[in-house]
């Protein structure tokens, strides 16, 4: 380093002296942070209190039941189709398949109702 460096560094210290932030910036920032924290807490508490009372929040579990139920029915239909495939040409077998399908559907419905109780 050159000999002049220490004094040049002093000059740099002077030139780049810390800049005080405007007073209103501090207030504005504190308010912004306060509003974030308080709104987050209020939102959480309000949601927790109302979640079981507000019917809009039932949509999610209801949708889960519907989706689960549909998947169950689809599964029964798929099984039934799979079982009936080799007997398609026979009218008697087709009737038996239909009976099995109805039996499966009934069984699945009973199981679903039992789970929800």
């Amino acid at each position, binding site marked *: *380093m050159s000999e002049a*460096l220490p004094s040049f560094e002093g000059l*740099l*210290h*002077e*030139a780049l002296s810390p*800049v005080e*932030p405007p007073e209103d910036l501090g207030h504005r*920032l504190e308010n912004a942070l306060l509003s974030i924290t308080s709104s987050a807490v209020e939102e*959480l508490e309000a949601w927790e209190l109302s979640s079981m009372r507000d019917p809009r929040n039932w949509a999610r579990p209801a949708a889960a039941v519907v989706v689960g139920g549909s998947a169950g029915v689809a599964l029964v239909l798929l099984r039934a189709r799979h079982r009936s495939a080799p007997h398609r040409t026979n009218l008697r077998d087709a009737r038996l398949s239909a009976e099995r399908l109805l039996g499966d559907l009934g069984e699945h419905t009973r199981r679903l109702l039992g789970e929800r109780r």
Partner: protein
Amino acid sequence: MADPQSQKSKALLDAEFSDLYRAHLRDVYSYAYYRVGNHHDAEDLTEQTFLQAYRHFDRAQRESHGRPLRPWLIRIAHNLAANLYRDRSRRPSSPIDETSELVASHTTEDLVEGRDELAQVLDGVQRLPDDRREALIMRFALGMDNREIARAMGRSDGATKVLIHRAIKQLQQMVAGSDSAGSDE
């Protein structure tokens, strides 16, 4: 209801963030000001820096293992400033928009003799390559040591030391060059 334990830790986190904010508001603002070159953008940048820091404070604390968080704050400001320039596709319109105001606000003794010299130094700082300028701002405006600057810039301590040394040398040459150019006129 919310878990009382999480509420307590949230309150503690908020208190700690409040301490961090009070301790480093001036640092972040100084960095922002010298980085973007005007008070308006510096205020925006400072505000955005702290809001972003607040969102990630919990994680930053856990990962800092007790080390100071100032480099992390400055790194956030650095990234936001880079985005600001990218978005606007511009650099500061002048080296420091209010160079004369800034120099005048230093000390009254400097007003007569040192004013030009300080203005030249500030002008030179703004003309340095980004990484060198940033390192000098952190060192001289914020008083950060090599290790802190290295963390803020994502470099090794050694590389940071070299960077600062070269930045000072280059700036010194720039100022000396403008001095001789001025005396030639």
